[in-house]
C-alpha cells in the first residue's frame, strides 16, 4: 500500500462522511425548509392552548404556512399568548380566525387559520382577534356528564 492510495481512500472516507452529515441535515432534518424564507409575526390569544407546543405547525386549508414561535402567558388577562411566524409569501385578511386543532385522534396539536373577508391584510406584529381554544377532553366529558345529569333530573320531574 503506497501513500497515495491511502490518501485516496481517506479522501473518499472523509467525503462520504461529510456527505452523510449533509444527508442528515438536508433530507432527515429540516434545514432546507423555513430557514431562508422571510416571515412575519402575528399574535394570537387563547383562553386555553391545550397541548400546543413551540414549533408546532400553523396550517391554513391543511397547508403549513408557518410555525408557533413562542408561547407566553398574559398575567393580566389570564390568557395564553401564542406568537406565530408566518411565511411572508402568504397574506391573510385581518379578520382571519385561529383555532387550535388536533391532527388525528392522538396526533399533535396545531393552529388552523381560516381566512376572513376583510380587505386589509395582517401586518407584522398584529393580533388575530378571533380565536378558538383547544378542545380539552376533560371539559368535554364534564359537560357530557352535567347534561346527562340534567336530562335525568327532567325525566324524574316529569313523572
Amino acid at each position: 500500500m503506497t501513500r497515495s492510495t491511502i490518501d485516496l481512500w481517506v479522501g473518499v472516507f472523509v467525503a462520504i462522511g461529510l456527505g452523510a452529515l449533509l444527508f442528515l441535515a438536508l433530507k432527515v432534518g429540516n434545514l432546507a425548509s423555513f430557514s431562508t424564507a422571510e416571515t412575519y409575526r402575528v399574535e394570537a390569544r387563547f383562553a386555553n392552548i391545550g397541548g400546543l407546543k413551540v414549533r408546532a405547525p400553523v396550517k391554513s386549508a391543511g397547508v403549513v404556512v408557518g410555525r408557533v414561535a413562542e408561547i407566553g402567558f398574559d398575567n393580566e388577562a389570564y390568557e395564553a399568548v401564542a406568537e406565530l411566524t408566518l411565511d411572508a409569501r402568504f397574506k391573510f385578511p385581518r379578520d382571519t380566525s385561529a383555532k387550535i386543532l388536533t391532527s388525528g385522534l392522538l396526533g399533535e396539536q396545531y393552529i388552523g387559520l381560516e381566512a376572513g373577508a376583510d380587505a386589509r391584510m395582517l401586518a407584522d406584529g398584529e393580533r388575530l382577534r378571533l380565536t378558538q381554544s383547544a378542545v380539552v377532553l376533560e371539559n368535554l366529558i364534564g359537560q357530557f356528564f352535567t347534561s346527562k345529569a340534567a336530562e335525568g333530573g327532567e325525566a324524574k320531574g316529569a313523572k
Partner: protein
Amino acid sequence: MRAALTHLGAAVTAGVWRLGYAARFFGYLLAHSGTAFRRFGLTVREIYFAGVLSLIIILVSGLFVGMVLGLQGYDTLQRYGSSEALGVLVALSLVRELGPVVAGLLFASRAGSAITAEIGLMKATEQLSAMEMMAVDPVARVVAPRFWGGVISMPLLAALFSAMGIFGGYLVGVVLIGVDEGAFWSQMQAAVDVREDILNGVIKSVVFGFAVSLIAVFEGFDATPTAEGVSRATTRTVVTSSLAILALDFVLTALMFTGGN
C-alpha cells in the same frame, strides 16, 4: 479484614494515581500535537486505519440496526394506527442515540483495541524507547497522530452509521412493508430538528471520539511491556471505553434533551 482493607486502599490509590497520570498524559498529548498537524500525512495514515478500515463494520451494522428498528417500530406503531410515524421513530432514535453510541462502541472494539495493541507492542519491543534515544518524542510521533486520527474518524463514522440506518429503516418500512413514502420522509423532516437533534448527535460523537481515542492511546502507552500486559491493556481499552461511552451518553443526554421540552 485488615488485609482486605489494605488491598482496597491500595487499589483505590492506584486508580487515582492512574487517573492523574492519564490527565497529565492528555495535557502533554494536546501540547505536543503540533507534529500530527504539521506532518498531516501521519494523521491521514491513522485515519485510514481507524476510519476507512472500520467502514465495512459500521455500514453493515448501521444497515441492520436501521432495518431492525424499521421492523420493530412498524410492529408497535401499526397497533396505534400511526405507522406513518415510522420515519420519525427511526430517524430520531438513530440520530440522537443509536448512531453515536453504537458507532462509538464498534469504533472502540474495532479501532481502539487495534491502537492500544499497536502502541503497547511498540512499547514491549522497545521501539518507543529507541525513538526517545534518537531524540524523537514518541508522544508527538506515535501517539498524537493516532489520537487525532481517531478523533477525526469518529464523528464521520457516526454520521455514516445514522445515514445507513435511516436507509435501512426506509428499505424495510417503505420498500418491504409499504409505508407511504411521502409520509415517511415528510414526517421525519417535520420532527427532526437540525440543531436540537442532528447537531447534538454530532457533538455526542465528537465527545465519544475524544474519549475512546484518549483511552486507547493511554492504555497502549501505559501498558506493562510484556505479552500479557499488552493483552490486558487491549481488554481494558474495550471495557473502559464502552463504559465511558455509555456513562458520557447519559450525562450528555441529560444536558441536551431535558431543558427544551
